[in-house]
């Protein structure tokens, strides 16, 4: 580190102890809000809080600067208790420009802290935000504790002498905001200093400038009259262990990789990109040394079909998508139900119907998951409850799929997918193995019955390459046992009942339901 960082270990101002804080950082896409949010998350987690976060990206790839469409946000909820969501009402909102302010203000609690970059409220900024009046003066902010900070100018001053251009200097203002936020919530700056060091290695001028901006922000909090006290959130009582932050899609990908190893099955992902599911494809495609095969299909139909093919061959077939893509998989899923092959279909839900609100979250695909196929076509449906839970659910889904020889639908959503929370690292050796038995070659004279069932009604998973087990499967109704085509109505009824009963049998092997939240209420969402 080239300069000594000069902030005191902690503030001299009074400290107010609170059990939890929800803060949202909002600005233009170019303002570095995602970075600020990630740093605050990591620091909070390292300081022992339970944390849940949610980033909110603009819908456009690169929306015009300063417009409402270009607003990018990051919400962090940290607590001394166990928490389950990124929070609803905001305790504090940091807004870097008017567009960010007006599009997020509605979520700030009355009397909540509102920190504004007052340098960004000129006429042109207001116009870009489609505002006729300055919200700071027209009374719209009267219910909040407004703190206006000329961040741009203070940052410019702070980084003077590092040799940066004005444009470069201005890009440091998220670190100024970070310093102020860290001060306000009593966060340790050291991890972020380490981050700056690593990120700007080789660009010492930038590293230096960002450190200075961070310091200036911190000092601003400590010295200005605006703030009477800082807030303190005590460490949460988390289960002992080693923790890291994980995002939902990442935990999902890792859970799949773990399931693959636990069951000694090649992981074959057939997927077509779609927001907010694509990151599972991106994540898995990095880990080819884990034996993962990723296949970017020509469309979602090809994706589901490819994994049915892979499952027929004995691989762990997985497909990932979101609403519009899942809607296309109904016919393929029907076939998977009929073939009784194990595979996973993962729906990272987003706002619908139709193309809907692709970058926003929603949980409105449950009924499609249950019923979105023609005929009597039952299938287990699981849902993840949080980013870290994605890891466990992925493994459980694969366990169910292989135990019962059935496709399994797994629901997540944009919130969980892009949200993050601390995750206690499992010891991989101690994770329960997933036992899969394939029938061996047939003895001479023995006839193989591909639809003969075990106690829980699962059929055997016979793999091509096994002598004597040659058999044909397909989408036509099958005769019980032999799997030959049958148009007999009695057999059909029997098979319909059997497929339904098999899925009900899943209840036999899963843990009992547990209630999360209040013991009483109007609506119970049951979870296993």
């Amino acid at each position, binding site marked *: 580190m080239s300069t000594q960082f000069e902030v005191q270990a902690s503030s001299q101002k009074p400290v107010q102890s609170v059990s939890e804080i929800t803060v949202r950082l909002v600005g233009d896409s170019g303002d570095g809000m995602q970075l600020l949010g990630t740093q605050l998350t990591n620091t909070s*987690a*390292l300081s*022992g809080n339970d944390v849940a976060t949610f980033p909110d990206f603009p819908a456009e790839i690169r929306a015009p600067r300063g417009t409402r469409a270009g607003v990018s946000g990051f919400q962090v909820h940290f607590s001394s208790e166990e928490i389950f969501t990124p929070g609803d009402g905001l305790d504090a909102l940091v807004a870097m420009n008017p567009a960010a302010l007006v599009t997020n203000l509605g979520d700030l609690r009355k009397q909540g802290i509102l920190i504004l970059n007052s340098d960004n409220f000129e006429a042109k900024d207001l116009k870009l935000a489609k505002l006729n009046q300055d919200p700071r003066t027209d009374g719209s902010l009267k219910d909040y504790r407004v703190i206006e900070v000329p961040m741009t100018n203070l940052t410019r001053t702070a980084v003077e002498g590092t040799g940066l251009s004005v444009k470069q200097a201005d890009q440091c203002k998220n670190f100024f905001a970070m310093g102020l936020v860290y001060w306000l919530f009593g966060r340790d700056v050291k*991890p972020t200093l380490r981050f700056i060091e690593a990120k700007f290695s080789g660009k010492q001028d930038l590293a230096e400038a960002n450190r200075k901006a961070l310091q200036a922000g911190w000092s601003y909090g400590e010295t200005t009259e605006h703030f009477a006290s800082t807030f303190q959130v005590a460490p949460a009582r988390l*289960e*002992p262990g*080693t*923790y*890291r*932050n994980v995002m939902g899609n990442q935990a999902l990908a890792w859970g799949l*990789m*773990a399931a693959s190893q636990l069951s000694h099955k*090649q992981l*074959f992902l057939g997927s077509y990109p779609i927001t907010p599911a694509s990151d599972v494809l991106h994540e898995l495609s990095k*880990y*080819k*040394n*884990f*034996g*993962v*095969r990723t*296949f970017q*299909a*020509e*469309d979602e*139909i*090809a*994706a589901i*079909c*490819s*994994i*049915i*093919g*892979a*499952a*027929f*061959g*004995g*691989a762990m077939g997985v497909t990932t998508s979101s609403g519009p893509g899942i809607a296309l998989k109904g016919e393929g899923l*029907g076939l998977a139900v009929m*073939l009784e092959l194990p595979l996973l279909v993962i729906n990272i839900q987003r706002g619908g119907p139709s193309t809907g609100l692709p970058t926003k979250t929603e949980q409105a695909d449950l009924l499609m998951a249950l019923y979105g196929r023609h005929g009597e076509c039952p299938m287990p449906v699981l849902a993840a409850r949080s980013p870290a839970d994605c890891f466990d659910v992925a493994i459980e889904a694969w366990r169910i799929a292989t135990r019962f020889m059935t496709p399994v639908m797994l629901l997540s959503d944009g919130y969980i997918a892009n949200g993050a929370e601390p995750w*206690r*690292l*499992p*010891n*991989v*050796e101690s994770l329960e193995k997933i036992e899969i038995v394939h029938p061996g070659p047939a003895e001479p004279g023995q006839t193989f019955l591909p639809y003969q069932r075990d106690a829980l009604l699962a059929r055997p998973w016979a793999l*091509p*390459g*096994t*002598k004597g*087990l*040659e*058999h*044909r*499967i*397909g*989408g*036509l109704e099958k005769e019980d046992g032999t799997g*030959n085509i049958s148009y007999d109505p009695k057999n059909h009824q029997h098979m319909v009942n059997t497929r339904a009963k098999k899925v009900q049998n899943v209840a036999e092997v899963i843990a009992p339901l547990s209630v999360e939240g209040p013991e009483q209420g109007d609506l119970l969402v049951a979870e296993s």
Partner: protein
Amino acid sequence: MSTELNVLKPADYGSDQEVRWCPGCGDYSILAQMKKVLSGIGAQPEKTVFISGIGCSSRFPYYMNTYGMHSIHGRAPAFATGLKCSRPDLDVWVITGDGDALSIGGNHFLHLMRRNLNLNIVLFNNSIYGLTKGQYSPTSPLGSVTKSTPRGSLDFPLNPISVALAAEATFVARSIDTNIQHLTETLTRASQHRGTSFVEVYQNCNVFNDGAWDYAKEKDVKDDNLVELQHGKPLTFAKGTRGIRLNGLQPEVVSLDQVPTDDLLFHDESADSPALAYLLSRLRYPQFPEPIGVFRAVQRPIYDEQINQQVEQAVAERGPGSLNKLFAGGDTWTVN
């Protein structure tokens, strides 16, 4: 393909299921020739998988004593792709129809061709939807009067060979259901090709489109209406009395009385560019004799091999993946 001494006869490749095509359907002959081909190349039934879509032709897998999947309409290439990527050790055959492959399944067909997995796809072209009882298909001629087009179809037909070539296919061939020897040879060559091999087979649907290929099948006319492609050989037909010559890019039929063989168009199935093969695919009856045989056979990297090589390379470079290491690889902290 097995290197053991083959002991299986064609009949050994047939399953115990009753064959349920209409009596006289061209599918019977293709089934019979396929069994011969498998016997000839010594295919192991347990290593062989037939995957089909939906249609009369797509009943095929049920009749083979191999692994098989009768999937859904138009998607057989996608099932085969997933299977072959994760199990490159298997011999995979895709069986499809003109509707299955080129109507609902056109997109998967394109992408199968360009990917070049090491598998075979056989399209039973009867220029009609058989199973749904007689609507026109993407290969039906303009003006076809069918159940759904009482005043004649209006969609210009697709040429399966042209489409396959444009989709970057590495092996493209055509044969005829009842041309037993030619079909057997063509399927055998397809099975030997390393990469995706596409074979169009003219197939008679004697119930809904009887006689569609008579010009290419009837003894007295077929020699005049077909030209058999042979690598390195000139294009001659009509028992060697006529040939095809290029005038610029325009093919023309010439009499071999008047034109020396050397002036004819010579076939080159391994030409780097598909332009010749494409040009040949445009020769259509009745203006020209139609080529049968192998239009194109070239080598290109194989998708299923490469996807597995990427895995091997990754392991070689980074070692087999350790989950514990991966999980602990970021910023971690400890709670006691």
